[in-house]
């Protein structure tokens, strides 16, 4: 346990040490946040509600999205795949303990750093300047915090699965690029999932893309219970999936060589 905590702390410190990247990231989030805010204000000029969301919901969505951007699409997205390709991943198999937990601990350390240094400041400043709908109670804020951490865990779990493609194909990037536009849209990073046509929305609501962005937005805007339950369920399912893939991949590596 101590080893995993040490990895978590090391990941946190490592990410926090990139000051320039942090400044650049905050600026980018602010810029796109302002652009999106303007777009949604224009949309809501003529009406009070779109697909059940009012302007406060929409603005909350915008700034949670900006806050979570670097957590979900982490700058180190391809790190695992590259380690697999270069053969450095083998080092993970040669250490005592559990490789999946080690990777998770280190990754979570880094995403927690992003949550603390980017998500929280971005949301706080936005909430001071704009009419966002954020929890007003300490309990509500704690639930939002938990939801953001769960989003970070699911983000690792999905990135782990994408990265694992490198065990089977050297062309893992093309594979991802092929599905990327669909993932981008369906995870709600273009417009809220609530705007989708009924059947598509129903489908997406049952996908592991919901915990990444829409669940924290829903926790913030009021529907905390079901959103958190969805996140926890996906963490459990992806946990099993990730471990199964790792077991298969290790088996393949050990039988066929790296």
């Amino acid at each position, binding site marked *: 346990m101590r080893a995993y905590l040490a990895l978590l702390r090391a990941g946190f410190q490592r990410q926090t040490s990139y000051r320039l990247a942090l400044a650049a990231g905050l600026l980018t989030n602010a810029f796109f946040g302002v652009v999106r805010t303007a777009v949604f204000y224009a949309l809501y000029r003529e009406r009070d509600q779109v697909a059940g969301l009012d302007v406060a919901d929409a603005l909350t969505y915008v700034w949670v999205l900006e806050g979570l951007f670097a957590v979900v699409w982490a700058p180190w997205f391809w790190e695992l795949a590259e380690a697999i390709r270069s053969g450095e991943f083998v*080092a993970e198999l040669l250490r005592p303990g559990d490789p999946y937990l080690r990777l998770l601990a280190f990754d979570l350390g880094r995403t927690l750093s992003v949550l603390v240094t980017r998500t929280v400041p971005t949301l706080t400043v936005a909430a001071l300047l704009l009419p966002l709908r954020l929890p007003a109670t300490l309990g509500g804020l704690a639930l939002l915090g938990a939801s953001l951490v769960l989003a970070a865990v699911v983000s690792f779990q999905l990135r782990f699965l994408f990265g694992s493609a490198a065990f089977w194909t050297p062309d893992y990037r093309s594979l991802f690029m092929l599905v990327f536009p669909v993932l981008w849209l369906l995870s709600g990073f273009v417009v809220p999932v609530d705007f989708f046509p009924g059947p598509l929305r129903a489908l997406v609501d049952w996908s592991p893309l919901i915990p990444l962005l829409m669940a924290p937005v829903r926790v913030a805007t009021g529907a905390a219970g079901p959103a958190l339950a969805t996140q926890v369920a996906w963490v459990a399912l992806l946990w099993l999936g990730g471990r199964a893939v790792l077991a298969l991949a290790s088996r393949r590596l050990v039988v066929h060589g790296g």
Partner: protein
Amino acid sequence: MNPHPVIEVEGLRKRFRTRRGPVEAVAGIDFRVQPGEFVGYAGPNGAGKSTTVKMMSGILLPSAGRVEVCGMVPYRERKRLARRMGVVFGQRTQLWWDLPLEESFELVGHLYRIPPAERAARLARLEEVLALGPLLAVPVRSLSLGQRMRAELAAAVLPAPEVLFLDEPTIGLDVEAKAAVRDFLRELNRDQGTTVILTTHDLDDITRLCSRLMIIDHGRLIYDGTVEALRTAYGTTRVLVVDLAEDEPVQVQGAVLARAEGRRRWLEFARDEVSAAELIARLLAGHEVADLTLEEPDIEDIVRRIYRGEAPP
């Protein structure tokens, strides 16, 4: 002989499926390594060296045969064995790329559950021997190759492994860095009794460090013995290099003229047919000589000839 070898390999084979059909990278090898041995493992590219090391460290499943390290079957008990075995791959890092070296060592300490006081003591020793002091605050990605290799070695031996597998640890290092790595390994083997298996292309590493040499080619062990025995068994040809006082034809009984350049002559002769003293006496009897040197067979040369099949074992 010690009844408990630290490594036991018997009839070990590894077959890979490739697009051009099956390839047998390791074609049935047997050997035992006793605790405290320093074994050099040499062979040309693709001979099966790395494949053997991978099977011994548990990251590759043998197609047939038996391998045991520290009494464990590596691929079955990899995580347990990991606590008693260190591995360094020269071209791959096992450190955390973006973390300062110091933090990497701290993480290694936690992963291997080394008590903090013990870790500090071992690290202090390693820092001194490997001159790591100025590097501790530097992220691994900013280290030079030589510095990184010293760091990799330190991380690998920090848990005090019984067996250390080294795959090309001196590749790409300059003379000074090589010397530092060799000094460290020699001391580790002598003082801690760590068993070391060193895979290398650099036969200099082997002659300077290893008590025992194994040569693998086409997946088969073609030599297993001391470096000295190899030299006497295969290195029968010595060369007398002579600078004559005058440019004239030379003929000495028992030697063959291998090369001539200006007034210099290279005379090859067989160790078991004629002694150097005898040959020099014969030479001086018929020629005026300005200078001469005797060249002993180069281990590199011998091994190259073995690879080429010119000196079959």
